[in-house]
């Protein structure tokens, strides 16, 4: 069944009044993720903006069974949920571990790699807002070169963003995809598809964050779109090791043209100290990754 904006699950699982910031890319994405996964989903949560979004005890604005765990352990926590459900013969529950980039690229990489190597039957989704936002915008392994953070406050981050998708690809899991809340149908369809696949599924979510990235709250969707238009963030999926462009990236690959990166960079306060050299380096890496994807799509 092909779903479109008129066929999307109408039920809301995140009620008004959650504790995320205005214009939060995570709450946009989470809304569509839960619509796609529906009931019969258990969410594993590490300390992060997601944990805060879920609210303060004893109230929550999210109608989904959810289990908080420690920062390093979200994939292991999901593994435990899966194992427990199996042991009790409770079928048909989708286990989603949703972690920030810190809980994925950095402190969470060990438990995620372990769970993926065991091909644990769960979805791990990383909402990548490119920094430790919950603790106030510190640098993470996902922060791009040239960004100001509270731990790179003067010189900007000197190192490039870790190529985490390659790391996950190297686990040869059944399904890997990228999504952006700026393209909700693409996001929705990929989660619907992922729900039906067994084994470890990894979905990477580009997650614009107004306070962390330094842009007006009304521009979240615009910034997310620019990430895709510039080719900085590419929408694709890899199923059984086969690469495929999707959504807007597919259109650009087939008959479009990438927008220069400077259009994305100049919209965000975090890049105000980015040097011309850094921008050049970033643009070069975007180009080479784009070309690599074009080649893979042909092959």
């Amino acid at each position, binding site marked *: 069944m092909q779903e479109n904006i008129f066929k999307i699950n109408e039920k809301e699982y995140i009620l008004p009044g959650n504790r995320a910031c205005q214009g939060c890319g995570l709450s946009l994405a989470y809304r569509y993720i839960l619509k796609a996964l529906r009931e019969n989903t258990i969410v594993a949560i590490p300390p992060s903006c997601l944990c805060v979004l879920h609210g303060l005890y004893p109230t929550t604005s999210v*109608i989904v069974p*959810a289990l908080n*765990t*420690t920062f390093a352990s979200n994939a*292991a926590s999901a593994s435990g949920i899966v194992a*427990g459900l199996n*042991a*009790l013969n409770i079928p048909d529950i989708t286990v989603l571990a949703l972690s920030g980039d810190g809980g994925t690229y950095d402190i969470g990489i060990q438990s995620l790699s*372990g769970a993926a190597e065991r091909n644990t039957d769960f979805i791990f989704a990383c909402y990548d807002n490119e920094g430790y936002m919950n603790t106030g915008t510190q640098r993470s392994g996902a922060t791009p070169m040239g960004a100001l953070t509270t731990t790179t406050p003067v010189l900007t981050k000197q190192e490039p963003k870790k190529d985490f998708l390659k790391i996950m690809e190297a686990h040869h899991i059944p399904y890997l995809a990228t999504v952006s809340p700026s393209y909700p149908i693409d996001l929705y369809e990929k989660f619907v598809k992922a729900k039906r696949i067994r084994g470890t599924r990894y979905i990477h979510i580009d997650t614009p964050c107004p306070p962390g990235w330094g842009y007006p709250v009304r521009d979240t969707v615009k910034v997310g779109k620019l990430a895709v238009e510039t080719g900085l963030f590419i929408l694709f999926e890899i199923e059984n090791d086969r690469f495929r462009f999707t959504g807007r990236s597919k259109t650009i690959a087939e008959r479009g043209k990438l927008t220069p990166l400077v259009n994305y960079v100049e919209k965000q306060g975090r890049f105000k100290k980015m040097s011309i050299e850094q921008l050049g380096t970033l643009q070069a890496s975007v180009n080479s990754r784009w070309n690599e994807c074009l080649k893979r799509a042909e092959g």
Partner: protein
Amino acid sequence: MNDVRIITGNEAAAQAVKLAKPGVIAAYPITPQTSLAELLSEYVERGELKAEYVRVESEHSSLTVCISASTVGARVFTATSSNGLLYMHEQLHWASGSRLPVVMCCVNRGVGAPWSIFNDQQDSFSQRDTGWIQIYCRDNQEILDTVIQAYRIAEEVYIPVMVCYDGFILSHTMMPVEIPDSGLIEKFLPPYRPHTILSSDDPKTINPVFFPSRRENSKGVLCDGYMEMRYKLQAAFEKSREIIVAASNEWAALTGRDHGGMIWEYKTEDAELVLTGMGSIATEATMAVDALRDERIRAGVVGIRTYRPFPKEDVAQAFKKAKAIVVFEKCISYGYEGGLCSDLKAAFYGTDVRAPIHNYIAGLGGRDVKTGELVDAARATLDTVGSGETGNKTIWLNCHTGIEAEDRG
């Protein structure tokens, strides 16, 4: 016919786990726990134990898997030693804070640096304040019996239980162990009922952020704050003493084997010199007592079986007649003394127990502890007290401290 087998401590633990039938097992190998993790995977692969065995990539994850599986409603088991236990530290608090009846074996080993694979109890001692019940075993039969009791206790009070036993000394030493039949276990151990159900029928966010004060829920009911949750854990610990004793007594009635609930005693009726300790060093102390009694010294042993909750009333009673107390310990709280020694002193405060206490730090990193050394130490304590010295002391047993050399000038 009783099923008696000559097995190691690790196999005794594995046999107990098989009888308790956990739904989920997660473990990561570390000496001297390793053969326990291996045996369990063999039982599962052979189909002798129907459980999900999650071969995790670390101890942090093994305990996490147990925490989540237990939350979902499965009975769980894990085991570790030494640095593996230290690596779990964050999750130890998470398990007890979540009030989950996780059962774990800690096969006691010294901690690095420097590396030692050999036995002492610094690992579990340094996790004393993580909100786990800690029970120390003396022999392989007690390991088997205690693992089964641990499930009963944990699932009744919703506190995780750590069953501690000495690495190599018990884990790798063979002794006769009676394996109870599964009918008996069913009588003793009712099925596990989780306190909260994770289900979309009644969606809840478990363990979210708490604020310092109590807050109202959507129906206007004032709910616990962080501090109330903490108080409840402490209150459950206070209550757990009677549950631990009841489990021990009921097990004794079913099997004829009584290892003591909180403490055990050996020849204490008339004892004025009382030796104490936890685990195999306390067993060694019983042999020392026999030797001391041959010299007509009225000695006895009070063994600490349950270290947390601390048996404060039991020890105040059991040490009442002591004229001198000797505490043998395989761990230390750096900058002070052995942890058991401090806890005993605190328990004795304001009671009739006023005997001098000598604390012997012994057997660290597997250094051999011979019965004769315990005898000499106990005798030395008695002599000192007899000569009118009333002070407490901490002495490193069989350790070259260099002090003698300095004395010689």
